[in-house]
Structures are given as structure tokens and as C-alpha cells.
């Protein structure tokens, strides 16, 4: 099995939407491949942690300045706290980040990971040509969801960058900063422009698709940065 085949069914594996044979095949790949196995374990830990959380957690509104500050600093708050072998687990044990914040962010990322795929699949299957249509427009509900998910992923990144790190992670975080800040700035600008355009032309399906695509890219960028910092 190839990595991309595994990743295509990654979330269904955790979500329980696969046949027994498919599940066995994917589990076998995760056992043989250390990277895929690590990602699977991490996601399962997040899901387990998220299930234990209170139902309503409000994401902070001013997330982006926090990310920028955290990246700029890229320094541990409490150097004596040791990172757990799998970084996700360590966030619950460290005083470097308020426990509720890390947990809330993880819950949001879980929502992000699971609902993103579902929303998009739903929109795709509902539209006759494989794309969005007026009747199945992803705006505003799905876009609001994506926006929330981006906030959650950003919060996770912010938390991750504040944890004690080794030289590899420190180098990764520092190097990520330029590209990430620049990329997110471009994406945020394009999101603002598209939102403004939609305000004057709310039924335009092309604009709706574009806005969704921008949020997807933003989420993917934040998620990739997180994985990068976590696995370095």
C-alpha cells in the first residue's frame, strides 16, 4: 500500500467508516510504516482527548497575532518540561500552555480534520458537475466552519511553538516563520478580497468555490506546519 492510499482513508480509519478488510489493510500499513503509524496514533490520541472535553469551547478571536508572536519567539516558555515521545500527548502535561487552550485547540483540529472532508465530499456529490452549485453553495455554513477550523489549527501551532524543543524543531520553527507568515498573509488578503466580492455578488458559485479553496489552503498550510514542527 502506498502512503497516499493510506492517507486517503486515514480519517475514515479513525472514524470507523471502513469495511473490516479495508481496516485490516490500513492497520497493517500503519504497523509497517513508522510515519503513518505515528500519525495514526497521534490522531487517535487527539480523538480520545477531544471526546473527554466539554462540548463548548470558544476559540480566541485574535489568533493570528498570537501565532506571529509565537513564531517570532520560537522559544520555550518552560525549558525544564520534557516533550513526550509523541508531541500531541505532551500538550496535556505541560504547564507551558494553559491546559484548556491546548485541549480546545485539539478539539477544533479534530473537528477540522473530520468535518472538512465531509463537507467537501457532500458538496461535490451534490453538485451535478462535481463542483459547487447554487443550491449546494458552501457559503456561509461550510466557510464559517473552515474559518473556525483554521483558528483551531493556528491555535495548535501557536501552542506547539511554545513548547520546549530540540535543535531540529527549533530550526524548523525558525525556518517556517518566513514562509508561513508570508503565505498566510497572501491567503488572508485573498480571503478578504473574495469575501468583499461575495458581499456584492452573494450567489456567485465561482466566488464561493474560490473562498472555500482559500480556506482549504490556509488550513492545509497550518496543518502541514504543525506536522512539520511535531515530527522534526
Amino acid at each position, binding site marked *: 500500500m502506498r502512503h497516499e492510499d493510506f492517507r486517503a482513508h486515514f480519517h475514515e480509519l479513525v472514524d470507523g467508516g471502513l469495511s473490516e478488510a479495508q481496516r485490516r489493510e490500513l492497520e497493517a500499513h500503519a504497523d509497517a510504516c513508522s510515519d503513518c503509524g505515528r500519525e495514526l496514533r497521534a490522531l487517535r490520541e487527539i480523538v480520545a482527548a477531544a471526546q473527554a472535553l466539554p462540548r463548548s469551547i470558544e476559540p480566541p478571536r485574535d489568533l493570528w497575532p498570537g501565532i506571529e508572536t509565537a513564531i517570532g519567539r520560537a522559544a520555550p516558555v518552560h525549558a525544564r518540561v520534557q516533550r513526550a515521545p509523541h508531541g500531541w500527548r505532551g500538550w496535556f502535561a505541560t504547564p507551558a500552555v494553559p491546559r484548556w487552550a491546548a485541549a480546545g485547540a485539539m478539539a477544533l483540529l479534530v473537528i477540522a480534520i473530520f468535518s472538512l472532508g465531509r463537507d467537501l465530499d457532500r458538496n461535490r456529490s451534490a453538485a451535478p458537475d462535481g463542483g459547487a452549485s447554487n443550491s449546494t453553495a458552501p457559503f456561509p455554513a461550510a466557510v464559517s466552519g473552515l474559518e473556525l477550523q483554521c483558528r483551531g489549527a493556528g491555535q495548535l501551532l501557536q501552542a506547539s511553538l511554545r513548547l520546549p524543543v530540540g535543535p531540529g524543531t527549533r530550526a524548523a520553527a525558525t525556518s517556517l516563520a518566513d514562509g508561513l507568515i508570508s503565505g498566510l498573509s497572501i491567503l488572508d488578503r485573498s480571503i478578504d478580497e473574495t469575501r468583499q466580492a461575495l458581499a456584492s*455578488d452573494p450567489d456567485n458559485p465561482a466566488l464561493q468555490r474560490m473562498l472555500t479553496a482559500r480556506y482549504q489552503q490556509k488550513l492545509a498550510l497550518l496543518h502541514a506546519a504543525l506536522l512539520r514542527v511535531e515530527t522534526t
Partner: protein
Amino acid sequence: MKTLLLRSLCIAGALGFAASAGSAKPIQEKRPVDEDVLVTVKNVNGTVTIEGWNEKQLEVTGTLSGDIEDVEISGSSSRMTIEVQFPRHTRHSSGEADLDIKVPVGAGVRVEVVNCPISISKLRGDLELEAVNGDIAIAGEPARIEAQTVNGKIEIDASCAHVDAQTVGGRIVIRGAQGDLTAATVGGRIQVTGGKFERVRLSSVSGTIDFGGELAGKATFEGESHAGDIVLHLPDGVSADFDVSTFSGDIDNDFGPTGARREYGPGRELTFSTGDGDARVRLSTFSGDVQLTKKAQAESER
């Protein structure tokens, strides 16, 4: 006095350079491996150069500098990992590892680096390459390429039927690929030349997309950009259905109509067919322009 001071500084500098150069530690390791071995390479600072050769051997040469302790080579003949080792309990490292690696031509290669350019050549296996701050250059005939870098550029000069290239800020240049291509960037430019493609997905936020390949009979082509222009250079006799839309950009079409303005709001839409309409081309931008140009005959035959 000034001359004396300058001379002292020069001598001190030279001694410092000599000491630094002297601390570079050479490495040379060899392991027997299968011809389709999967090799994983992890490095933080330095360079990673991987070349295929016709031997069932993995060879690692190069130099380690600064506080890099060692390069750990572990695994079995079917799966090897090469990982640069930092001193334990260190949070800062100025060390670099320049790695020159030779693997069998059929090997699969995975590379994860931070501040390293990656260079790959003469390989026929699958490649998965990931850098934070480094260019990625690929030549040869790999079966599949997945390449991602945040700050660097990706340059693929390879005959490959499955390419997936992604950057945040760097440009993506692809020559000689064919078949299935996905390329995405936020701020970079995407440039594709040569090759006959069956499935193409190109996406950019602010960079230009410039495609000069050919479309196979039933090909699908999707190009999407926010502010970047999309430029397609296609052969005169291309057979395709085109569906083009832009919110505030312009459409320039060498193949016929230039599109109608939307009834409400700015922007243009254009739908037309050429030949038997075999391939399907779908392009959309927010403010970027779309240009459909005819490729010169000589260029198209190259």
C-alpha cells in the same frame, strides 16, 4: 597602529577559519541493500544529494561540521534510514551535515530536511521529498514524485508520470513530466513545459501559472488562481472543451471568442470547444488574467 590591528584581525580570522575547517568531520559508510530499497534521509542543516547507481550498495559520504555528532545509518537491506544526530540536551545547533548518498537506481527515497537543498538524480523509484527552507532539484526518471518545500523552489527536469509539487513561496518549474500532474503554490509561479498530460491540476494564489504541455485525448485540466495570471500555450489543433471564468480579470483567447461579461458584477465567462472537444479544460481566477495562446508549430513538435 591601524595596520597592526588589521593584520592581527586577519591572522585571527585565518586561524578561526582553519580551526573551523579542521573541525569538519568526513564520513564514509557503505551498506549492502536490495535494488528496490526504501531509503529515508533526515537532516536539519547542510545539503542532501542523492544519486542512483548500478550497485546494490548504499554509500554515504560527506562532511559533518559544528556540533553534529554522527550520522546514524540503520535498518535492513530493504529499508534504511540515514539520520543526522545532534548532541543530546542541546537546543541550539550550528552544525551542518553535507551528505552525498548513492543508492541503487530502483530505490525509493524519502527525504525530510529543514535548511537543506535536496538534489536527486538518476533514480527510477518513488520519491517523497520535504524541505522547510531549501530548494528541491530532481532529474532522471523517477516513477513518482511528491515534493514539498515552504521557502524554496522546486525544479523537476525528469520524465515522470506522477508528479505532485507544492511550495508556499517558491516557484515550481517542471520540464519533461507527463501523465498526472498536480502543482500548487501560494506565492510562487508555476511553469510547466513539454510532456503529454492526462490529468493536470494547477493552483496558485498570487503567482502566475504558465502551462506549455500537451493534453492527451480525454485529458482533464483544472487551473485556479486568485490574483495570478493563467497562461496556457496549446497546439493549434488542440481538441478540448474550455470553461473559463474570472471575477475581475481579462480573458485573451487565440482560439476564438474572448468571453461575455457577467450579467451582474464584474468579470467574464467563456465556454467554447475546439476540434471534437475531447479534453476538458476548466480555468478560474479572481483577479488574474487568463490567456489561451497558440503554441508555435516548431515549439509544439519539440
